[in-house]
């Protein structure tokens, strides 16, 4: 079998992706930031930085601290707002031949709906990812994502206001992530993506102050991968809609773990900071794995976990 024979196409509900590797929201900007190093057209897709109805200034610094094999961030969803996104970012994004998924965020259910409505019909937007899992904002975000009923209502509201497929990004900061996954599935979500960051903190022992301006932040990176993988494993068994795996994926082997566990696609996040070409390396690695293991379609690999 030659190189061209490995078919990396995957379907995430109504969404057709040329390969199962996307860049995660908040870690790849709007794609242009990395364009010198990464051709976005080679990616399965790109989930762009979360946008809200109005611009948000974000949290007070420091916003980032490195932790063992990971990092805490408390950016606070700094973003330019949906209007500026449409005017300044989308014109370039829609020239790309890749699935651009817009991560959306609101302070209230109505705001989630309003952001979705503004993106309705927007050419170049392949899908929406609802962020009900940001740990770094006081209102909205995780407040919704930790409550199955509230998660479902936000999902319904967004679905009412959009013509795009809807992915719901779930928080791991819950007792039972499957309950939230099932609730948003019932509400009509086309897919779920998980996990967002795990809430954490770090303290400077000299100043006795928190090392983040926001006190707490979201932990990401390889440190969280086993937690993420197990949650994906569980959610895959709890819902019928596709699951997108996220959490500390650095290389091909990491991505394969999630696919074997049943994720229909993966998002690469923190790894972009370390190796901007991580996603491209993973795509090449998946192709090689398929060739080496005589797998003609990568979809045949998904969910092949033996237990």
């Amino acid at each position: 079998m030659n190189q061209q024979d490995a078919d990396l196409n995957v379907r995430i509900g109504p969404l057709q992706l040329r390969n199962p590797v996307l860049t995660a929201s908040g870690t790849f900007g709007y794609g242009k930031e990395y364009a010198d190093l990464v051709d976005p057209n080679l990616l399965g897709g790109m989930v762009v930085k979360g946008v809200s109805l109005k611009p948000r200034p974000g949290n007070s610094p420091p916003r980032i601290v490195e932790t063992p094999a990971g990092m805490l961030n408390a950016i606070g969803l700094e973003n330019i707002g949906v209007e500026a996104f449409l005017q300044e970012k989308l014109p370039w994004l829609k020239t790309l031949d890749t699935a651009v998924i817009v991560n959306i965020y609101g302070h209230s259910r109505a705001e989630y709906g309003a952001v979705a409505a503004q993106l309705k019909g927007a050419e170049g937007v392949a899908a929406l990812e609802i962020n009900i899992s940001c740990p770094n904002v006081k209102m909205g975000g995780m407040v919704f994502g930790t409550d199955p009923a509230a998660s479902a209502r936000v999902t319904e509201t967004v679905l009412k206001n959009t013509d795009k497929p809807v992915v719901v990004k779930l928080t791991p900061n819950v007792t039972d992530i499957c309950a939230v996954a099932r609730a948003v599935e019932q509400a009509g979500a086309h897919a779920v993506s998980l996990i967002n960051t795990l809430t954490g903190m770090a303290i400077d022992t000299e100043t006795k102050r928190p090392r983040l301006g926001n006190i707490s932040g979201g932990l990401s990176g390889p440190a969280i991968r086993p937690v993420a993988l197990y949650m994906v494993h569980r959610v895959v068994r709890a819902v019928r809609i596709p699951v997108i795996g996220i959490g500390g994926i650095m290389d091909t082997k990491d991505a394969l773990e999630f696919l074997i566990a049943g994720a229909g696609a993966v998002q690469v996040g923190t790894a972009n900071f370390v190796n901007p070409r991580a996603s491209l390396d993973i795509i090449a690695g998946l192709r090689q794995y398929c060739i080496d293991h005589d797998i003609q379609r990568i979809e045949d690999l998904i969910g092949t976990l033996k237990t």
Partner: protein
Amino acid sequence: MVVFEHKAEVVRNEEVAPNTFLIELEAPSIASAAKPGQFVMLRVADKIDPLLRRPFSICSINDGAGLVLLYRVVGRGTRIMADTRAGSYLSVMGPLGRGFEAPAAGEECLLAAGGMGIAPLVFLARSLKKTRVTLMTGYGTAAEIVSPAQLGMQDFAVAVATEDGSAGYHGLVTALLEDDLAGTGRKIVYSCGPAAMLGKVASLCLERGVECQVSLETVMACGVGACQGCAVPAAAESGRSSFHVCQDGPVFSAVSIDWEHL
């Protein structure tokens, strides 16, 4: 501006003062594109721990191909760097950020450095005519001093201040700057160092109506404007709530920063 990322060979990595090193990487694409004040993101080891790249201002360019960085061992990442041997390879990404803006014709350039803040100022000084430049360097104590010759600055006017008085002027580098600002003639100040020092430099310049450009240092994850982790508070008149050091800086006009909240 094009950004490159590749593995670069370590040409030398030498201790120039206790716990202070100059590392040179063979990175011709980055070196030839770099402007004074720009920085690179260095991966100190091909490992997941420590995870993130570290930002370093470019200290100088050697023969158009060698990227020279100055660092002090302050944590795990720089400790690993210090143990790196010539001949090994490190991933480097750059050149990144906005550098210094050139002085206007006839302006006398006063460069004020605190500690490792000397790095970008060396690159700047060496891009200017040496007769126009006065470099003032501040250190805690004499042992920390990196000699001007080791930085390729032997032909420049370099003044030293130490906080404990063990070498040069006894006091802060900002006192040297204050003296130099007193003279006549059009001046421009370029500065890099700890935040408190830069705040003082900024206020000295603002009081005298002297243009001042500062290079800021923050923690950073991406270096290219993707993560928004390197925010610093912007002055009210800038029309922004914050700047991102990696993209809007690291060099800023002193008037655009909210020094009180930095």
